[in-house]
């Protein structure tokens, strides 16, 4: 692949990345608009139950589990919401009873912070690695091109051929 080839490849690649970003942005916008507005009582209860782990089945959220204790926890959430507690207060109630384990997504403090930050750090690291690899490859290509510029011109080639021919000629 010469330099000109990689330049001509860059435009379609940029275009497709641009299209993908526009589509993703539009989808995010639509989703956020669908879920915005005043959350109903059901929405709020569901939001809490979605973030809690079912104690007897562990791999399901309280909102999705058919187990009896999950049903009772949904009842407890509804009771506390009706009593005027906030969603965060209810979450903290369950954390005080079962520990951080009951939350399906880790908290932002302590070890939980690592879980939130690690993916971003990994992604940034990956981007740096790919970028430096690409840069190194391009440098290699440039060096190759530079060597091509050093290559003999047609006139020089003709002269070399002539001199070789003269050397091979006997006498």
């Amino acid at each position, binding site marked *: 692949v010469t330099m000109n080839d990689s330049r001509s490849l860059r435009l379609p690649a940029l275009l497709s990345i641009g299209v993908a970003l526009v589509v993703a942005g539009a989808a995010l916008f639509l989703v956020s608009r669908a879920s915005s507005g005043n959350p109903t009582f059901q929405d709020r209860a569901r939001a809490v139950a979605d973030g809690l782990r079912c*104690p*007897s089945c*562990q791999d399901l959220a309280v909102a999705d589990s058919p187990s*009896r*204790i999950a049903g*009772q*926890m949904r*009842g*407890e959430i509804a009771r506390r919401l009706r009593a005027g507690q906030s969603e965060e207060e209810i979450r903290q109630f*369950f*954390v*005080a*009873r*079962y*520990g951080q*384990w009951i939350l399906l997504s880790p908290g932002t403090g302590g070890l939980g912070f690592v879980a939130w930050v690690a993916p971003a750090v*990994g992604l940034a690291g990956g981007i740096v*690695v790919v970028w430096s690899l690409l840069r190194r490859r391009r440098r290699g290509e440039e060096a190759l091109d530079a060597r091509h510029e050093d290559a003999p011109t047609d006139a020089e080639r003709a002269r070399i051929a002539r001199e070789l021919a003269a050397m091979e000629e006997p006498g």
Partner: protein
Amino acid sequence: VTGRREEHETSADTGRAGDDRRWRVVALSLVPMVAIAALLGFGLGRDPTKLPNVLVGHRAPDFALRDLQTGRTLRLSDLRGHPVVLNFWASWCAECYTEHPDLTAAWREYGDRGVVFLGVLYQDSRGAARGFVGAQGQGWPTVVDPGGRTAIDYGVTGVPETVFVSSKGVIVHKEVGPSTYAGLRRSIDRMFRGAPT
């Protein structure tokens, strides 16, 4: 000829530099792999059903529940001054049958020494629970926990679970799974000392 030798040296230099670079790439990619493997080893080596007892050292949540047999209301706060063994159980729970003789033995030994044994029925019908008590015998009372609110208050994830409350109303230990006689004795001794585990 000299030109050719120079070219040889430079290519050897770039070869060495390439080797260094390759080793650096290998080392750099190994570090996160080893870190992730260590994390997995740590996480998978632990029993996922074993949960931290966050309630230990905290005040036992109070409750007012009805007795399975008499229907009278029983309050935990009325038992202040006595160490309490709170046993969450159900008639459908096989391990509750397993631990029952051990609980009975501990109750025989410590019941007269001021330790109150109290069963809390977990997700079971009164009829089935009375059947269990009739067949197995149970010298201590059991209260019914409609809606499981008390079970949730005590962070119960399943049965059997046994909570040990000191005479001052503080949780000193929580046993998840079937209790043994030796384990019960150990936890009750701790309760007498009032020391959380």
